[in-house]
């Protein structure tokens, strides 16, 4: 196995010399339009030939690793292959060049697409109504917890607490806290929700319980119905974190499991590319009793015309301007239409098959806590590495040298030295086997090799503590610091 990432010397775009301005000097008043006291004195931006700019970013792109480069088994992130037809559709003018405030009669295609996407997500999620407005998964959680608050307030209840298991994604407690709730993290039992502990914790003060199922260990929470009963009996709501939906499409649904609110990560399950950190989209689905609180506008079909409905007096209002990340919604719609119902079910089947295959091949090389059967992802413990003076981090960095992105590491926190692996359905057995070979080969290497890794990437290990100490967030600050240090640029 040989891998070498490109290494280019790419200066920061502000570094190269300025091109002398040609033609007429710039008139800062713009023909007298901008008065003197408003005029900008200086604008220290680069001025480079297009040729150099393209070279700059193409070379930078070669120092970046995406799904298109190879396996990206980042647990809970569902880094599946993104079909290219979806990218092509969003390059059409009928997507790019429409404005959100256009007369609805001139955006009927967009409104239809969003309306149908809502209905398809209702079917997949087992819910009654969907809003497409949230811009990302965490934003969906935030919206969902706002719905919880609005619901309880409307029935005259003030509840102060949101409960979640200690395996929950970090966004869950952060979202609940942002809506003003106290957060109680419940210790898990055998990797799943401790039902007795939950019973003891739930009270009249409980607003909601947030759960992802399968959970972040890849285990299906079998007691989910009982859990739902405990919460509902106490007047609380059940929130489904949709980050792990890729495991269960067509097999079960959050609605069927009695969840009241669910968010969907379109950039995970529905194959929209993650763009190096975004954009995503985090639509939220709800059961009937919560529909009245969804953000406005709602998209409606009346007399054969699609329109916008703002008349929802109990609505929480808006969580984002306009309708949501439309270009992402178009990609997800295209993907769902491509797969169809059977296709999506097969997506989940293959995701779970790949995950269990990989788990079986790797479990003896590491430790596999909590039983055997997994869904779309599994979590190994890198504890055996410790005996050789190594950490999971060293192993993960060495994987990069073999041309594989590292799994999610040190999460969930309840597994010591965790390695959270999600291969997704789009990888072949051949790729999985090569990954297994790489893992086994790494485990046989000299510990020094792992500690020195990576060596085949554009940079060796990064001094992250230095970044936090130096706090250089822009070229401007960097130059200021150079100046104050009395050094020449």
């Amino acid at each position: 196995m040989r891998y070498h990432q490109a290494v280019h010397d790419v200066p920061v775009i502000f570094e190269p010399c300025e091109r002398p301005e040609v033609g007429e000097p710039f008139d800062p008043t713009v023909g007298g339009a901008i008065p003197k006291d408003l005029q900008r004195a200086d604008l220290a931006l680069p001025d480079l030939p297009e040729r150099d700019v393209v070279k700059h970013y193409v070379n930078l792109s070669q120092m970046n690793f995406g799904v298109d480069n190879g396996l990206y088994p980042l647990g809970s992130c569902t880094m599946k292959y993104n079909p290219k037809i979806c990218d092509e559709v969003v390059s059409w003018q009928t997507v790019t060049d429409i404005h959100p405030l256009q007369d609805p009669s001139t955006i009927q295609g967009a409104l239809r697409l969003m309306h149908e996407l809502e209905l398809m997500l209702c079917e997949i999620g087992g819910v009654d109504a969907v809003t497409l407005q949230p811009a990302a998964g965490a934003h969906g959680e935030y919206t969902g917890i706002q719905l919880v608050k609005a619901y309880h307030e409307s029935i005259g209840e003030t509840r102060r607490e949101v409960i979640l298991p200690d395996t929950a994604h970090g966004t869950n407690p952060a979202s609940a806290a942002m809506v003003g709730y106290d957060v109680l993290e419940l210790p898990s039992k055998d990797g799943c929700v401790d039902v007795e502990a939950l019973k003891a914790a739930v009270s009249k003060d409980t607003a909601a319980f947030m759960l992802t199922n399968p959970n972040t260990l890849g285990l299906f929470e079998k007691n989910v119905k009982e859990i739902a009963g405990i919460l509902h009996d106490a007047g609380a709501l059940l929130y489904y974190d949709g980050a792990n939906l890729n495991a269960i499409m067509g097999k079960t649904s959050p609605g069927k499991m009695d969840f009241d609110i669910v968010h969907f990560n379109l950039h995970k399950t529905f194959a929209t590319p993650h763009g190096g950190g975004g954009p995503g989209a985090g639509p939220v689905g709800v059961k009937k009793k919560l529909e009245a609180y969804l953000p406005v506008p709602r998209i409606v079909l009346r007399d054969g015309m699609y329109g916008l409905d703002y008349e929802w007096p109990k609505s929480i209002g808006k969580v984002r301007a306009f309708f949501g990340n439309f270009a992402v919604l178009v990609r997800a719609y295209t993907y769902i239409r491509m797969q169809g119902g059977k296709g999506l079910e097969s997506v989940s089947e293959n995701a779970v098959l790949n995950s269990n295959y990989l788990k079986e091949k790797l479990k003896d090389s590491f430790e596999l806590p909590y039983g055997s059967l997994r869904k779309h992802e599994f979590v190994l413990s890198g504890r055996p590495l410790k005996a050789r003076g190594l950490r999971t981090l060293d192993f993960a960095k060495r994987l990069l040298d073999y041309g594989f992105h590292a799994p999610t590491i040190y999460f969930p926190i309840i597994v010591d030295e965790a390695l959270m692996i999600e291969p997704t359905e789009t990888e072949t057995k051949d790729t999985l086997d090569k990954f297994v070979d790489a893992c086994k080969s790494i485990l046989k290497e000299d510990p020094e090799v792992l500690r020195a890794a990576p060596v085949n990437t554009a940079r060796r290990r990064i001094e992250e503590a230095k970044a936090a100490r130096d706090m250089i967030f822009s070229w401007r600050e960097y130059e200021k610091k150079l100046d104050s240090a009395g050094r020449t640029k």
Partner: protein
Amino acid sequence: MELSKCSLEMLQELHLGSVEELFADIPKEVRTGGLKLPPGLSELELRREMESVLSPNKPVSSHPSFLGAGVYHHFIPAAVRTIVSRSEFITAYTPYQPEISQGMLQSLFEYQSFMSELTAMDVVNCSMYDASTALGEAVLMSYRVSGGNKFLISRSVSPEKKSVAKTYARGADIALAEVGYDRETGLVDLNDLKSKVSADVSGFYFETPNFLGPIETQWQEIRNILGPRSMVVGVNPMALALIKPPGEMGADIVVGDAQVFGTPMNLGGPMIGIFGCKAEHVRKMPGRLIGMTTDIEGRRAFCMTLQTREQHIRRSKATSNICTNEALLALASAAYLAVIGKSGLRKIAAKNVENMRSLSSRINLVRGFVSPRFRATHFNEFVMTTEIPYDKVNKELLAKGIQGGFALDRQFPELKSSALYATTEMHTKADHDKLIAALEGVR
């Protein structure tokens, strides 16, 4: 399910008879029997289907539009698309492994650098969802910085942003109050601001240019009235090519939208929220930050930093829940600014001002129309007022294949029959001529 040869092999190695056995842990009572969705399509069928679904949309090329109100139609050089289409960028996740993600990390650092330069703020994070959620987060940060459970917001802010700010404020039990604008100039009403600033106010948000078009001039006065409270300023970053940046005028927090730099309108999403602040507040700010550092060999390198503010470390004590942001659009902004450069940006910005001045004065010459409504300096957007009910104007324009400006009477009843018009470098003289001729025909 149809199994591929590889899948069958994997099943055999797992000693399983069927894929169904992998789902044996899902109790029967919660099982569903498949999905009731239309059958899948081949790529060719899909392409035809998508063309048919989307074809009723009328893009601005077929349909000149004078809408802005937060989303703008600007020119995007071909090179920007080339750069943003690199699949190493598009198909990557958040750069959790910096050694193999230097390309995106450096691009995001460059985005932060561009925005920091334009706004003159010490620190700009590597993006929020859009300007409206950036404002929502600014309301929360203002509370963290200055305390006080009240926040003031200018009336001349878009209804979309106000609604989002309200949602965010409610979650944190912060009360919002509105500060009016001067009916002549459209600028912040200083007397109203003075009367509303009290001990429990954490900060004040206003924009330049504001939603109604005017560029703010009363910086010193606003700063003095606010005292130690947070001055939160909304900007159109393209206008900053010409006008003094908020960082030089005492702003504590700056928000805005960088969609104007290389991202199409896309029906208003994705957009990209700019969020900047003073260095002293950096640990209280939301969102991801990219920092410059070195690798162990001393070569310059970049990584995400100050992550102890973030949800995956701090959980319920994080400064925000944000995780996924708009990284690819940040790359687009950096690429756009690099491609057009300083001279290009100033020329485009100047063209916007010229087009606005020309269109506004031509509308003013049409009988029954007054434009601009406010005596102020504008960038590319202005309010026009008419004697004719504006709904009627818009309908007649639409019948002539023109999308008129955004009607203001619902959210700004004090402006009576008025509308917000935007014009950018994309409009030709022919587009303006077409609008003027149509307005002359409205009766």
